[in-house]
């Protein structure tokens, strides 16, 4: 094995793990609380808009 491929391999292992850790978090999905928070914020704005 050449030094170059050793380094690349090392790099690849890190990047692959990094992407997996990250992807796992992405795949967890988003808890409902965030979508309801956005709905709440929207509603708040709409009510304020009506009053103005």
């Amino acid at each position: 094995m050449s030094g170059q491929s050793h380094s690349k391999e090392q790099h690849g292992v890190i990047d692959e793990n990094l992407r997996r850790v990250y992807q796992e978090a992405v795949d967890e999905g988003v808890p409902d609380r965030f979508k309801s928070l956005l709905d709440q914020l929207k509603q708040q704005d709409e009510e304020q808009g009506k009053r103005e």
Partner: protein
Amino acid sequence: MSGSDPRDELVEHLPAMRAFAISLTRNGSVADDMVQDTLVKAWTNIDKFQVGTNMRAWLFTILRNTYYSSRRKAKREVSDVDGVFTESLAEKPAHDGHLQMNDFRVALGKLKVEQREALLLIGASGFSYEEAAEMCGVAVGTIKSRTNRARAQLAELMGLNEDEAMEMTDDATMSVLSASKVASF
């Protein structure tokens, strides 16, 4: 407000924001609080977002600022936030060549937060060095060296290097150094 509301796009960025927050803090509930604060800030400050620019980068900037300000606050309350985290993550990394995700997580958790952040922005979230530099308010070279140090340290922690930590400045140096090291065996 006319036409499309940029706030309608916020929801699309939620999974990425959350993944970044979780990977950065290694703590689901801290991460979710960060994301929640960021959403409220983004919503109420949407007039500061320039339409046509990268919304994800803008959101990540708010997200990391939220993180660092809550971290500063926590530091005033607890003497060593990092120490507490590190302690709970202290495990011996495996050296069997087959890397488990958990070993990687532990190693990632041991990095300095600035290095972990840079690596996550570049290696996982897909931002350019320039974007990451702007988000973090540092020079492009700083982001590059943080990423390289992060990689070098991860390699060391996971036993990918046979010997001591290397002082990396850039990718070219890294491959040259590794090459000469292997050649000398």
